Each structure stands twice: as structure tokens, then as C-alpha cells.
């Protein structure tokens, strides 16, 4: 055992790449599957170099068919493999929606626990990259609404490195939503061994984390909006408002305990995500917080997110996305309620 931790400063994309490499090295049953993930290294280069080092049998360029990718991944998992599927962009997951919701999510239940499907689905999601239609969406709530699936989203390189390995180690299928707008954000990553996926420690796959302590308002975020929430906290602090930032990390199962503990301290809650607020993750958080913290709440729980419109054209996407000003506006509204 090395006494000094191996810490490197890398981008979020590179952290996932390193996590995938680690998983491929440690378990011969791990496979990567997806479109253009081989020689090209994926359209975002997240699988860069892995095809060269692990070969085409383990880093598999698939035909251009998302249902086919997921359906064959299920078959591979039934044979004892641990497939990690890349869906090229959020908006292209829908051809696989049937396989994910009717088969992948339900096989363990259908088989009374005899069959497990340890399949990970990596989905670059979210906007802010000036893309054309179908390349900027946030469909996570659709999967969080489906029993049998785990849905997670890292917000920083350190979590991305650990969580991708924890997702691969999970006996349950995991939707791994990667904030593509943050792919090139850098952070320190401890390249040591990661904790088991479902432990009681705060860094487990199903635990939220308080990233910044505060006393006035809890801002709950995940994936791409965590950085926005942290910036909001910084800006608010300059004006004397103390914001506590909770990074959900896991959308399903929701870590109600951590969120509720925070809101009991602050009495106010704002939930931020890029996905439309209507029937979204924020609605679930608001409902649970209201149920558990009714007497501690000083103001209604507010949601900040996308509108009930399709993702707009990129020239106006900054007006759609929940940016710093909209988060601060919501914080002000809870304070002045």
C-alpha cells in the first residue's frame, strides 16, 4: 500500500476515462459498448485509448442502434458480463427506452431475484454547448420514475472517477448521467481504490453530499447545476446570505435524509436542475421536503429549471438554462416570502 495518496488534477471527462480503465483492468467481465467508442474514443473522447489497450472484444463499436445496444447488453449481462453502454447523446436514448424500462429495469423483479443485470448506461446530458436539437436534453426524471433503475449524476471529477466504478460494481442497472457541459472542468481526483457502491459512508453511490455548509437557504442541485449553485452561494455570501449546497449525486434513490437534515437547519429550500421543472426531480424533492420539514419550513420549496418547452435553439439556450441569476432570484424569493 502506498502511503501517499495519488492525486491528479484532471477534467471530468478524463476522470470517467480513468474510472473506466480501472474497471476494465480489475474485472475481465467489464465491457464497454457504444457507437464510435473504439478507434475514435467516443464523440467526447471519454473512452479515448481504451480500445487500443483492451481490444475490440472489450471496447465494442456497436451498430448504430440504441435498442440493439441495450438489448444485447442485457443478453451479455445474463451471460455474466458487466456491460457499460454509451449513449452518444441524451436525445438519442429513446430508441432504447423500451429495453431500459420494460426489460432492464424489471428483470430482477420478474425473476424473483434470480437474475441480476449489472448494466451501466452512460449518458452525456444537459445543455450549454451550443448544440443542435436532441443534443442538450436532461431526461433523467423519466428513468428515476422507473422502479428497478438507479439514476446518478456526478458533478465533479473526483465523484465521476469514483461513481463510475461504483456504478459498474452495482448489481443493479445504473443510468449514469454525465454533465457534458462540465466535461472539461478540472478537479483533483484521488486515484486510490474507491469505496464499495452501497456503503453507509457518505461517498456511497446512493448518498447526497453537503458541498458547502450554510444557514439561511438550502440549494439542492446535481450534475451540471452544482457548479452554478456553488457560484450562487459565493455571490450570496458577499451580500450576507449563507447558502448550504447539497449535491444530490444520486437522483434515484433520492437521499431524503441528507436533504431533509439540511432543510431542517435552514428552513428554506431551492432545487435546481436543467430538466423541465414540471414533473421533474425538483417536484419530488419539494414533495418530500414538505412532508418531512413542514414545521421547519419558512417558505415554500422553489424549483429552478428548464421550462415546459422542448429544449430551445442554442442561440437562446442561456435564457432557458437555470443560470446564476435565476438561482439567486429564487433564493431571494424564499428569503422574502
Amino acid at each position, binding site marked *: 500500500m502506498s502511503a501517499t495518496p495519488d492525486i491528479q488534477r484532471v477534467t471530468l471527462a478524463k476522470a470517467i476515462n480513468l474510472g473506466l480503465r480501472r474497471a476494465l483492468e480489475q474485472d475481465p467481465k467489464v465491457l464497454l459498448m457504444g457507437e464510435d467508442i473504439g478507434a475514435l474514443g467516443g464523440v467526447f473522447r471519454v473512452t479515448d485509448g481504451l480500445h487500443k489497450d483492451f481490444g475490440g472484444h472489450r471496447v465494442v463499436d456497436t451498430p448504430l442502434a440504441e435498442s440493439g445496444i441495450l438489448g*444485447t447488453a442485457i443478453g*451479455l449481462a445474463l*451471460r455474466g458480463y458487466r456491460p457499460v453502454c454509451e449513449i452518444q447523446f441524451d436525445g438519442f436514448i429513446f430508441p432504447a427506452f423500451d*429495453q431500459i424500462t420494460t426489460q432492464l429495469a424489471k428483470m*430482477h*423483479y420478474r*425473476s424473483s431475484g434470480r437474475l441480476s443485470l449489472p448494466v451501466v448506461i452512460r449518458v452525456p446530458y444537459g445543455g450549454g454547448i451550443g448544440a443542435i436539437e436532441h443534443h442538450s436534453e436532461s431526461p433523467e426524471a423519466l428513468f428515476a420514475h422507473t422502479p428497478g433503475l438507479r439514476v446518478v449524476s456526478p458533478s465533479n471529477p473526483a465523484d465521476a472517477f469514483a461513481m463510475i466504478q461504483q456504478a459498474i460494481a452495482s448489481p443493479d442497472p445504473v443510468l449514469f448521467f454525465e454533465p457534458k457541459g462540465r466535461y472539461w472542468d478540472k478537479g483533483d481526483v484521488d486515484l486510490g481504490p474507491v469505496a464499495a457502491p452501497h456503503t453507509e459512508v457518505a461517498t456511497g453511490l446512493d448518498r447526497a453530499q453537503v458541498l458547502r455548509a450554510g444557514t439561511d437557504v438550502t440549494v439542492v442541485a446535481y450534475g451540471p447545476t452544482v457548479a452554478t449553485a456553488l457560484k450562487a452561494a459565493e455571490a450570496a455570501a458577499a451580500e450576507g446570505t449563507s447558502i448550504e449546497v447539497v449535491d444530490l449525486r444520486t437522483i434515484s434513490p433520492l437521499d431524503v435524509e441528507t436533504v431533509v437534515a439540511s432543510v431542517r437547519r435552514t428552513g428554506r429550500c431551492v432545487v435546481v436542475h436543467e430538466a423541465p421543472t414540471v414533473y421533474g426531480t425538483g417536484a419530488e424533492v419539494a414533495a418530500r421536503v414538505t412532508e418531512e420539514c413542514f414545521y421547519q419550513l419558512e417558505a415554500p420549496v422553489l424549483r429552478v429549471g428548464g421550462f415546459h418547452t422542448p429544449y430551445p435553439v442554442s442561440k437562446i439556450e442561456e435564457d432557458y438554462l437555470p443560470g446564476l441569476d435565476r438561482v439567486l432570484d429564487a433564493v431571494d424569493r424564499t428569503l422574502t416570502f
Partner: protein
Amino acid sequence: MSTTGPLTDDGLVQLLTPGGQRVEHPDYSHRVAHLDAEALRGLYRDMVIVRRFDTEATALQRQGELGLWAQSLGQEAAQIGSGRALLAQDYVFPSYREHGVAHTRGLDLADLLRLFRGIDHGGWDPAAHNFHLYTLVIGSHTLHATGYAMGVQRDGDVGTGDPTRDTAVVTYFGDGATSQGDVSEALVFAAVNNAPVVFFCQNNQWAISEPTTRQSRVPIADRAPGFGIPSVRVDGNDVLACHAVTAEALERARSGGGPTFIEAFTYRMGAHTTSDDPTRYRSAAEEDYWSQRDPIDRLRLHLEAIGELPAAFTAELDAEAALLGERLRTTVRGWEAPEPGSMFQHVYASPNAVVEAERAWFEAYEGSFLPAGGAR
């Protein structure tokens, strides 16, 4: 019978005529040459037992003991003929009407009824029989079969020449399923990976009320070569021909020769399910035509013609079938509903706080009611 289109009977591999006459086929006769009279009686027994099972299940549904039943009536030759070509290490991905194949894999047929009784979404251990659970979403499982076969390739269990190791995967589906995108995707993935998978399409001519002409302009088997997959059309009511073509396809798969598409041209003699009413969409004349081509009659006529169906055998078989019927009735009626709290089991393979919280709430809620019989 038209001579073109998806319902033509031109070009079907046949080894046994509807009248029970053996006919020779240059490519396939040798694949059934080893079947002696005892083996033929074995196939006959399988088909009779499965039909009795199917008839009994239909009756149990009519008596209100099953919520629904999907009959296999008329498809016994396709299922028994192909199923009896499988080896222990081969793996089957069925649709939901493959009761005959299940029988050949050694499942207790009663277990197939758990799903239809409403007490289980599955009902058996797939690994114990290499027989996956029934899949109700049409065509989805053809991709699972293909992926499983890709796993077989990665395990190196193809083309070793070791007959106890080389493994094939078979997936069963119907004519309607061939319109599903997943089936086309399965053919693509199987072809480009040269996966050891056999696509066994039972064209029973009806997808509930829609004839195969609503699914295809050409014989369904004709599609496969476009994907780079060899295909064969076989008389699906001829148990010997079904056995022969499947044996060839399995051998190709196990040896590393890749996928094969088999179209077994048969007829759904019963309804789609017990909720269906075929009198609304097909003629009695058509049903009569096919009742003259019953797959079980065909083998019986052959065995009688060669003097290999002794009365003692049929008497014993009748008794076995009757006993099965009795056992099914007793077993099914004895199955109680599971405990309501069991709905929370097996949602996830690992602990899940949301499910556990709901289970705890549900148990407390249930526990809040007074016990039956009123207050003490």
C-alpha cells in the same frame, strides 16, 4: 393457398407429408436418419403431452383459475422438433407460447402457469434449464439472445470442436414480431458479430387478428439473407423437418458458422389467447383446412403406417396425459396469492432506501387495521 407472398407453401423443407408419408430431402434426410421407432414415439409422446397440457390450461382459464392463457395448439411439431435438437449447454430465449420447447428443456410444465395464474411474473429458474423467462414485449428478447450469444463467443464456447462445450442460443418469436425494430436490430447485431444464435420464427399466420400479409410482402425467411444470414423455410407441422433444419442451424452456430434464420410455417389452431375470438377475423373453412394438417395426426399416421404405434403405448400415453391433467388441476387450484408485502421484494438487487421506506409504511398501514373478527 397462394403461391407467392408470405403465406406460400412453396419451398418448405418437408420430410413427412400431412398423410404421414416419409419423403426424402437431399439436404436434410440424413439429419433424422438416426431417429428409430422409439425416438419417433418419443417425439409423439412429447407432442401429445404438450397438447394435453395446453388443453388443460385452456380449461383452467375457462374455469376462472387462470387469468389468461396463450395456447400452443397446432405448433407442437415446430416446438418439439426444434427443442429436441438442443443440447444441455444451449440456451433458449422464448416468447410466451413456447410451452413445447419448455417441455423439452425439462421444466415442470405446471411452472409455466404461475405467470398466467397471477402469482409470479416469471415462474422458474432460467439457469436451471437454460430456458429464459417468457418475454411479453414482442421481439425484445431476440436482442437478449443475440447479446447472450456474443457472451458465448467471448467465453470461447464456440468452434472448439468439443461437443459438450460448443454452445448455441435459440430465440423463438412469431411472424408478427418480425415487424418489430428489435428483431431487425437483433439480425444486424447477430450478423456483424457472427454470433452463435438461431432465429426460430414460428409463422403461425396470425398476429392476433392480423394475417402475415399485414407484416410482410414476401416470405419472412426471405428477409434474412439481406442481413447476411442464411435462412430456411420449413413445414412447421412436420416434426422431423423442424428437427432437421434446427439441428443444422445449431451445428452451424456451435461450430462458429454464425446465425441462421428458420421460418417454420405452421398454423395457430387456437385463439391468440383465451381473450381472443378468431371467428371475428378468419373463416371456418381456413380452420378446417389446417385441422386436416394437424402436426400430431401426421406423426401418428406415420407410426401407424410403419406398424410402430402399439396399443399398449397409446394406452400408457393416455394414462400419462390424464395424470398430468389431474396434477395440473390440483396444483393450480392449490396456489394461493402471495403475501401483499412481497410486492416490495426484488425490485433491486441491492438495498434501496426508497423501496424500504415504502415497505415499512405499507406494513404499518396494514398493521393498523383490526384483525379479522373485530376488536378484542
